[in-house]
C-alpha cells in the first residue's frame, strides 16, 4: 500500500547517498561544517512535542521521579496532569476491553462440564481445548474461508467504494445528495429484508455461471457471501471514504493532474495515500464486519467448510442440541480473533499516520 513509488526507487538509495557526498561546493559555500556535528551531543530525535494534542514534551522525564515530585510538578505544569490523566485513561480502557477476553480465556481453559463460578481463574485447567477445537471440526478451514471472503469483500468494497467516495467527496454533480442518501437507505434495513429475494437469486441457475460454479448458482460459493456482504457494508465504506477524500486539499490533486495523472490516477496516487487513515479504517471495519457477519454467512452456504462456510458456522458447530461446548466456542473464538488482531497490527501504521501536515500553505 505504501508503495506509490516507482519500483525503481529501491535501488536508488545508494545513488542518492553518493550524491549527498559530492554536493556541489558552490552550494556548500555558506554551509559550513556544522551541518553534521562531529561531536554528536545529546540527541532528541522525537518530534512528538509538536504533534501531540496533549503536550507530550515532558514524557522523557515522566518515567522517573517519586510521586511527590510528580504532584508538585503537576501543579506548576498542568500538561503533566493531562499526561497523568492519559495514563489513567489508557489503563482503564485496557482493563475494560481486555477483561472479557481474559474471562473468555478462562472459559476456554475450563474443562467441559465444569463451567461454574469462573471469576479470575478457570475451573480446572484444560489447555487441550485449543487442540480439541481442531479435532472436533476442521476449524482452520472455516477461518481460512472467512479470511478469503473478508479479504475479497474488503477489496471489492474499497475499490468500488473509493470510486463512489471520490465522486461524492470531491465532485459536484446534480443529484449528489439524493444519491448519497439512497446509499444510506440500504443501512436502514435489517439484513433479513434482503434475504428472501437474494436467496432465490443465488439459488437460481445462471447459464453463464455454470463453468465457474458447476451448477450455475452462486449458492455455496464465496460469491454468495462476497456480493451481499459487500453491498451491505458498502454504504459505511462510501461514507467514510467520502468524508476523508473530501478533506484532501484540492491543491494536491491539482498538482498531480498537472504532473500528468488522470483524475483517476490522482485518486490512486495522491488522494488514497493521503487518506490512508480513512482508507485503512474503512478497510479494517469492512474486513472485521464481513469476517464476523452473522446473517448471510449462516444462510448462503450449506455449512460445509469445503463449500466456503465461514467461521461463524465453525463456532456454531460446537453448539449441540441441548449441550453447548462453551469451552470450545471460547477457544475457537480466541483463535478466530487472531487473524483480525494481526490485521489490526498491520493496518494500524496506516490508521495512525497523520500525513497531511505540511501539504499546503492554506
Amino acid at each position, binding site marked *: 500500500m505504501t508503495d506509490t513509488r516507482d519500483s525503481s526507487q529501491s535501488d536508488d538509495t545508494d545513488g542518492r547517498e553518493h550524491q549527498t557526498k559530492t554536493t556541489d561546493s558552490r552550494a556548500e559555500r555558506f554551509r559550513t561544517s556544522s551541518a553534521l556535528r562531529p561531536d554528536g551531543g545529546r540527541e532528541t530525535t522525537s518530534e512528538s512535542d509538536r504533534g501531540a494534542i496533549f503536550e507530550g514534551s515532558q514524557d522523557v522525564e515522566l518515567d522517573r521521579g517519586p510521586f511527590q515530585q510528580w504532584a508538585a510538578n503537576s501543579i506548576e505544569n498542568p500538561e503533566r496532569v493531562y499526561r497523568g490523566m492519559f495514563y489513567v485513561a489508557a489503563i482503564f480502557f485496557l482493563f475494560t476491553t481486555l477483561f472479557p477476553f481474559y474471562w473468555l480465556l478462562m472459559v476456554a481453559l475450563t474443562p467441559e462440564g465444569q463451567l461454574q463460578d469462573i471469576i479470575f481463574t478457570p475451573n480446572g485447567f484444560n489447555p487441550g481445548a485449543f487442540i480439541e477445537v481442531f479435532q472436533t471440526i476442521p476449524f482452520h478451514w472455516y477461518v481460512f474461508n472467512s479470511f478469503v471472503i473478508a479479504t475479497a469483500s474488503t477489496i471489492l468494497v474499497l475499490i468500488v467504494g473509493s470510486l463512489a467516495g471520490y465522486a461524492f467527496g470531491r465532485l459536484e454533480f446534480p443529484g449528489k445528495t439524493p444519491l448519497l442518501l439512497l446509499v444510506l437507505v440500504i443501512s436502514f434495513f435489517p439484513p433479513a429484508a434482503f434475504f428472501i429475494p437474494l436467496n432465490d437469486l443465488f439459488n437460481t441457475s445462471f447459464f453463464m455461471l455454470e463453468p465457474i460454479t458447476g451448477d450455475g448458482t452462486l449458492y455455496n460459493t464465496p460469491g454468495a457471501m462476497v456480493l451481499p456482504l459487500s453491498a451491505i457494508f458498502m454504504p459505511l465504506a462510501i461514507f467514510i471514504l467520502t468524508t476523508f477524500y473530501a478533506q484532501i486539499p484540492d491543491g494536491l490533486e*491539482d498538482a*498531480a493532474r*498537472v504532473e500528468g495523472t488522470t483524475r483517476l490516477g490522482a485518486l490512486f496516487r495522491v488522494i488514497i495515500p*493521503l487518506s490512508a487513515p480513512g482508507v485503512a479504517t474503512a478497510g479494517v471495519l469492512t474486513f472485521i464486519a464481513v469476517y464476523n457477519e452473522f446473517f448471510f454467512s449462516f444462510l448462503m452456504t450449506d455449512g460445509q467448510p469445503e463449500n466456503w462456510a465461514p467461521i461463524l458456522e465453525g463456532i456454531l458447530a460446537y453448539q449441540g442440541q441441548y449441550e453447548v461446548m462453551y469451552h470450545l466456542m471460547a477457544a475457537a473464538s480466541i483463535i478466530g480473533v487472531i487473524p483480525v488482531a494481526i490485521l489490526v497490527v498491520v493496518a494500524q501504521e496506516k490508521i495512525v499516520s497523520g500525513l497531511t501536515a*505540511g501539504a499546503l500553505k492554506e
Partner: protein
Amino acid sequence: MARVRLENITKRYGEETAVDGISLEVEDGEFVTFVGPSGCGKSTTMETVAGLTQPSEGDVYIGDDKVTKLAPKDRGVAMVFQNIALFPHMDVYENISFGLRLRKYDDEEVRRRVEQAADIVQLEGMLDRMPAEMSGGQQQRVGIARAIVRNPDVFLMDEPLANLDAKLRVHMRTELQRLHRELNATIIYVTHDQAEAMTMSNRIAVLNDGKLQQIAPPLVCYNEPTNLFVAGFIGSPSMNFAEGQLDENGVQTPNFHIELDPATVPNASVGDAVTLGVRPEDVHLSAYADSLSQPTASIDARSDVLEPMGDEVFVYLLLAEDAERTMDEDPASSSGQLLMSVTPDTDIEAEQDVNVVLDRSKIHLFDTETGDALTHDITDQSEREPGTAATEADS
C-alpha cells in the same frame, strides 16, 4: 508550438467574478509575467491555462489547439503552485520525479534529471527528506524542481520564489531565465516582486479586479503605463500622484503648478481634471536641476522622514503646510506628499526645507475620471508620437 492564447476568459465563483474577460496571447518561447494586486485573478487565470479550472466563459488555446476541455495532463504544462502543494507522503525525490515516473521514463533517466533539477534549485543532499521536514523555502524549491524536471512546453509559475531569500532568488531568477532560453519554453509567471517582473519577462501583464489592464514589455509598463492603476502599481515605491486641473498654462495642483501647453496633451482640453504622476526617482533636489534637460519650476517642500534603504534613501516630502505624513496611507498617493528617492550620499536631513524639481520628460498625465493615460512626457518636443500612451494595452 506552445503559443498560449486566452480568448475572453471569464471565471465566476457564484456571485464573484474572479477573472473577467481576459484575452491575451503568449508567444511561443515568450516569458510573460502576471502582476496585480492580491485577489485580482492571477492564480485563477493560470489555473484555466493548466486546465485545473474550467472557465465559465471563453477558450484556452495552446499551440494551435483549443484545449479548453482537455485534461491538464494532456496540455503539456508544468506548474509551480502558489501554495506549493508538495505530496506530503512522498520524499523530495519522489515528489520531483512524480511526473517522470508517470510517463514511465527509465530509472536512469529519471535519476539524472531529478539530480540536475535538484542541483538547479540547490537541493542536493535533501532528496530523501519528507516535505514536513523542510523549511518553507526548501519546500518551494522542491515545487520548482518538480516543474522544471518535466521540461514541458509551457511553464506556469505562481510565485515560485516567494519564500526564497534575496540571494537565492537572484540565483533562481537567472536559472529560470537560462531554462527559458535553453528550453525555449513558454513561461507564464506570477510574482509580486518588481525586480523579478522587470528583469525576467518579455512582457508584463497587469491585472486588476479580474481585468487585464496592460500587457507590454516591462519598461513600457514602467515608463508608459496605460492608466493610473498600472502607473501606481508598477514601480516600488509607487509613483507620486497629484490631482489637478488642466489650465491654459499647464496643470494646477493644490500645491504646485507645472507649466505646459495644454494643446500638446492629446485627448484633453483645458478645464479637465487630470492627475499628474511622477516617480520618486524623477523628483530631484533643485540643486541637481542642471543635470536634467528640462526640469520643472522649483517646488517648495519640507522633508518629513528619511527612509534609508542602503543603496538609496526615500525622502518623504510634505508640500502643504498642514499636510502630515500619515502612516496608514500609501504615502506616495496622497496629494499633500511627495516621495523622492535619492542616493545615500545626498546631503539631506529630516525636517528641513527643501526645493525640488520634477523631470518634465518623466511626468505622466492621466485623465482623473477614466484613469487613462494622456501623456508620459511633457517636454516641449515639436513632434511626438501621439499613440504611445496606450501601446499594446487591450483592456
